């Protein structure tokens, strides 16, 4: 859909509250934040704008978790002037499960195996999930978004974060998949909680990254202090420069590669003596065309250097230049690395 481009003048003419409402609705309608640059400019233009934005967000989040039962009040107070009104509400509520499953709520619902179609419980789950804001990136994409409290979240390739801020309460987010970097606006009265794979990271004014694989959670703390509550066991308080891995084998804390946190936000990845197998797995996260290493011998070769995350072909060519391997196209979406003349590995 073609959308009008917002200008700062236009926003200023609306007044702080009108502009905040417009920005919030446009963000809601687009499913992401197309006005991000304009939003930053508007927010910086006047200190009153942050307050207006917070009020708009509070009005929005006040309906978190609201469902059909909360609308009873309208049935009682409805004037009889519009005879179709009741039927329309009935239709709207019954139809909500299907519509939501086809749009925004899909990822969360998929993750839980989905609600029972048509059941009362299903409707309830759908309504709750739709109340959340879902931030997502496609494969190969990364983007930064500003949250209602002026914290920022940067999503790496193929990632999803659900935001559920309680008005005046906790700032709660869930890393549904992938990897995200959080720069938390300090607010001691409102804990900032990120959950993933059943673990929760609690932060107060800090910068950290969370990555969730199928079974493992990794937290890298860049600045400040966070506390990680694993699914089992006592919470762990991390220091800056540390990384925490939590998986089926338990929780370990070690020295983090903090530089790599900034890497993906610049669209690059750094390998230091990384095996070709691991490097290919990492690069494949960013692309729909997948590299494949056919030969276990060359999978153990090591790679060092900085590579663009959006150019797997160049990576493959570089490998072919430094090692006796050749890259062959394998169908539409694959390229395979094979030992050249059988003398590698």
């Amino acid at each position, binding site marked *: 859909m073609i959308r009008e481009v917002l200008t700062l003048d236009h926003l200023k003419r609306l007044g702080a509250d009108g502009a905040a*409402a417009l920005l919030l609705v446009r963000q809601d309608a687009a499913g992401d934040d197309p006005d991000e640059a304009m939003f930053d400019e508007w927010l910086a233009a006047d200190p009153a704008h942050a307050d207006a934005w917070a009020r708009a967000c509070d009005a929005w989040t006040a309906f978190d978790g609201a469902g059909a039962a909360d609308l009873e009040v309208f049935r009682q107070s409805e004037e009889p002037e519009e005879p179709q009104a009741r039927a329309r509400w009935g239709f709207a509520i019954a139809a909500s499960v299907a519509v939501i499953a086809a*749009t925004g709520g899909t990822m969360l619902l998929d993750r839980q195996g989905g609600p029972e179609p048509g059941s009362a419980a299903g409707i309830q789950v759908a309504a709750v999930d739709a109340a959340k804001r879902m931030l997502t990136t496609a494969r190969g994409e990364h983007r930064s978004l500003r949250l209602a409290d002026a914290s920022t979240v940067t999503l790496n390739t193929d990632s999803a974060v659900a935001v559920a801020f309680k008005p005046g309460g906790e700032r709660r987010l869930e890393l549904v998949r992938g990897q995200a970097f959080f720069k938390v606006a300090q607010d001691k009265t409102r804990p900032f909680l990120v959950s993933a794979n059943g673990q929760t990271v609690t932060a107060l004014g800090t910068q950290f990254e969370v990555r969730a694989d199928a079974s493992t959670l990794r937290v890298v703390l860049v600045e400040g202090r966070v506390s990680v509550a694993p699914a089992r066991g006592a919470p762990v308080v991390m220091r800056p420069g540390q990384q925490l891995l939590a998986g089926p084998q338990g929780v370990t804390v070690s020295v983090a590669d903090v530089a790599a946190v900034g890497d993906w936000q610049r669209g690059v990845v750094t390998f230091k003596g990384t095996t070709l197998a691991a490097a290919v797995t990492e690069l494949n996260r960013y692309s729909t065309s997948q590299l494949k290493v056919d030969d276990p011998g060359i999978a153990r070769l090591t790679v060092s250097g900085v590579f663009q995350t959006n150019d797997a072909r160049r990576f493959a060519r570089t490998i072919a230049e430094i090692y006796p391997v050749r890259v062959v196209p394998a169908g539409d979406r694959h390229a395979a690395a094979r030992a050249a003349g059988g003398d590698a590995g």
Partner: protein
Amino acid sequence: MSSSTPNGTAAAISTLPASSRAAESLQTAIAALQKLPERTRDIFVLRRIEGHAYRDIASKYGISVSAVEKHMVRAVQHLAATV
């Protein structure tokens, strides 16, 4: 959503102390909704509570998506002034 992981989430997620406050603000917000013109209110409920897409609401009422957005902006601005 967080209680469904097999390896046990319950220990990690603390209860929400804000829930009673949230219920209170929902009541205030619903009261504020009732002061809106009916169509604006209906559109807000369809979107915000029932999760319908903007384009679906537009075709339901036979209006443009940007008209739906205008109703939403009006509703948010009114609620923000009240809640």
